[in-house]
């Protein structure tokens, strides 16, 4: 309020005071002093409040979550969250219940995320997941940020290998990630050095981990037979034109990989199972019976990867080769198996929003505000090819497919900020993987025809 406004606001008070003391009361000069004193007191109070406001923590709330930040910005608490309620419906009739065991509604992720910045160098993040029957912790790690080019991270977090896996779960084009994710590690326990170089155009990460099975999280202090002793992982990714507006600004490419060894234990490889988009297992090793498959030696993964974003269009492409040494428990046969997967995922916003690796939380024209939200078309083609040497010794050709190919298309709708509702269809075909008549005859596993949808709140 300006000084003039204060004066007008105070005039009635002065008038009343003047009336009350009219007979014996204060002179005009005294009343003028009183008004001036009140004005100055208000002025000082405002100065004091302004000064306090500068030192006070700021509270922010928006489409990116909620935060409390200290006046200097070096201490911050952030709260974010992700809810994914899915529906999966298999269209084809199939004889085996296992082919479509995941039909129905489910909570895929319920993940509140808490992030704390402590001073300029320390960062802590914890992200539990309440979707499973028993709550788990997705991410929990701390960071020592020595420099933008040198950040040490320790705890449980995503291993830096597969491009789509490193994308935020709320930002992926489809409900489930593609086949390369099945051959790469997911989250694991370990320590990593990473950072950004060359003006933020190149990022790198080098880490050592317990060793995660393909497509799965690693375990704490994993020492059971069949687990990796330790696994090294690294990734470098460059966006050379990131700071130069133009056709290639949204181009990024890189390579990730791991190398680790597995102990030769006494049990089979039971924790490895490659899944379809409907989350049904279509490949696993023989892990029980008189002759079964064990880990034996090294496993490495190499994954060249790239993305390109330009205006409303986006494309993610990646390839991964996974080599793992296996042996039968009898020791009669050992081999190095090379499994491969690749995919391309494209997206396009019909309503003009910019496509990005970080996903969309704010449509340009939300529903109810002269708009209908944002609409995004998405498409995928992907293949996972099992090494032919796997069959029949290490895996059963009548139970596990040697190849899966999938294509999918969908429509994502972002009606308002932080909400995404999607509907997609995917068709996955298999080579082998089922028994004919007689049961020793290998036939192709039945196609997986899947309609799936999601209701997602992400902030």
């Amino acid at each position, binding site marked *: 309020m300006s000084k003039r406004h204060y004066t007008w606001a105070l005039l009635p008070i002065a008038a009343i005071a003047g009336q009350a003391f009219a007979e014996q009361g204060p002179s005009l000069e005294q009343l003028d*002093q009183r008004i*001036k004193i009140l*004005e*100055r*007191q208000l002025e*000082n109070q405002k*100065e004091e409040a302004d000064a306090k406001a500068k030192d006070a923590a700021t509270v922010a709330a928006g489409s990116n979550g909620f935060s409390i930040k200290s006046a200097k910005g070096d201490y911050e608490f952030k709260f974010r969250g992700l809810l994914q309620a899915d529906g999966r419906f298999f269209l084809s009739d199939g004889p085996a219940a296992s082919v479509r065991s995941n039909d129905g509604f489910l909570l895929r992720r319920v993940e509140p995320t808490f992030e704390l910045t402590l001073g300029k160098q320390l960062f802590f993040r914890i992200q539990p997941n309440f979707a499973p029957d028993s709550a788990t912790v997705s991410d929990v790690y701390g960071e020592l940020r020595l420099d933008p080019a040198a950040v040490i991270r320790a705890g449980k977090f995503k291993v830096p290998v597969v491009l789509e896996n490193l994308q935020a779960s709320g930002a992926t084009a489809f409900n489930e990630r593609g086949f390369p994710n099945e051959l790469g590690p997911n989250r694991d326990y370990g320590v990593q050095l990473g950072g950004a170089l060359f003006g933020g155009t190149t990022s790198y990460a080098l880490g050592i981990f317990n060793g995660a099975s393909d497509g799965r999280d690693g375990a704490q202090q994993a020492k059971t037979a069949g687990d990796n002793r330790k696994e090294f992982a690294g990734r470098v990714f460059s966006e050379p034109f990131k700071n130069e507006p133009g056709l290639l600004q949204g181009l990024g490419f890189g390579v990730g990989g791991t190398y680790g060894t597995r102990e030769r234990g006494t049990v089979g490889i039971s924790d490895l199972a490659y899944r379809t988009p409907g989350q049904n297992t279509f490949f696993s090793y023989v892990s029980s019976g008189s002759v079964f498959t064990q880990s034996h030696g090294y496993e490495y993964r190499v994954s060249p990867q790239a993305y390109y974003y330009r205006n409303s269009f986006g494309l993610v492409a990646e390839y991964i080769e996974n080599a793992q040494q296996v042996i039968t428990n009898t020791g009669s046969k050992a081999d190095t198996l090379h499994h491969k997967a690749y995919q391309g995922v494209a997206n396009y916003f019909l309503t003009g929003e910019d496509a990005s690796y970080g996903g969309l939380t704010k449509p340009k024209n939300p529903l109810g505000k002269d708009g209908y939200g944002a609409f995004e078309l998405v498409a995928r083609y992907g293949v996972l090819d099992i090494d032919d040497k796997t069959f029949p010794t290490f895996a059963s050709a009548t139970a596990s497919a040697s190849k899966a190919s999938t294509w999918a298309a969908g429509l994502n709708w972002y009606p308002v900020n932080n909400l995404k509702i999607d509907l997609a269809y995917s068709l996955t075909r298999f080579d082998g993987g089922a028994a004919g008549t007689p049961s020793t005859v290998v036939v192709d596993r039945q196609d997986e025809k899947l309609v799936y949808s999601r209701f997602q709140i992400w902030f």
Partner: protein
Amino acid sequence: MLKKLIATLALGLAAPLSAYAASYQLLNVSYDPTRELYKAINTAFAADYKAKTGDTVSIQQSHGGSGKQARAVIDGLDADVVTLALAADIDAIAKNAKTIPENWQSRLPDNASPYTSTIVFLVRKGNPKQIKDWGDLIKPGVSVVTPNPKTSGGARWNYLAAYAWALKQNNKDDAKAQAYVKELYKHAPVLDTGARGATTTFVQRGIGDVLLAWENEAFLSLDEFGADKFDIVVPSLSILAEPPVSVVDKVVDKKGTRKVAEAYLKYLYTDAAQDIIAKNYYRPRNPAIAAKYADKFPKLNLVTIADFGGWTKAQQTHFADGGVFDKIYLAN
């Protein structure tokens, strides 16, 4: 491309030459009314230092109530030097932040106070309320402007000067002195956080009949707003204010500015700086310069902080939480 190449070559050639001349930036965290003083000092010092060493110095100033400024330094403000209103505020930095050694006052002459000042009354032209001494301040209808002793160094000097007068008037009777000071603050309708704010209240906002002011601030008001608007009244007794200075050791060692920061404070004792000090209505320590400007400064009877047992005791007795000031002011 050619331009870039030439620029790079020029920089490469210039680098070895410029390596001999350094550039420094200092932050002087000071109290409220010294803006004009240090603006003049900083210009003179930068020129002097450049001439002597070839190095460039730029000095940033920060001003506010002395107590508030000390709190900011304790809380992490990276001051290379502090030039505050009273020793208690630098003592507080030494005690709480441990960024200054406790013997800081022994590192420079005159207890590290390169100049002195005192407290006088600034009244409206013609002195319509006939205010001549401390006793007149508590007469009915007299409105007094003074800052808040909890945040302002100048206000603490005001308080102690008033208290000293009351003690003298009442044969050193503390209870009567406290009663006087209590009555004095009943006549103070606005307590600004610093001396400059109080000057604004009195001079620009037109509030009150008398401003208890730093002597330099009173003269500055006459210069700036006209001798036809205000008069200075010298009370029968006042206090010798000794605003002290110190390098903030931890900061200068971290920034590598100790040499230039120490030179800056030593410069305050030079003839050139003492002359600037006198021209800005602060009382110089240098006897020759003081004699040169003797006619500018009225002679008055002064008590010193030693009469209150030193700043540590005075601070604890009067201005600490729960001290005399809190008791009398809250009672009002």
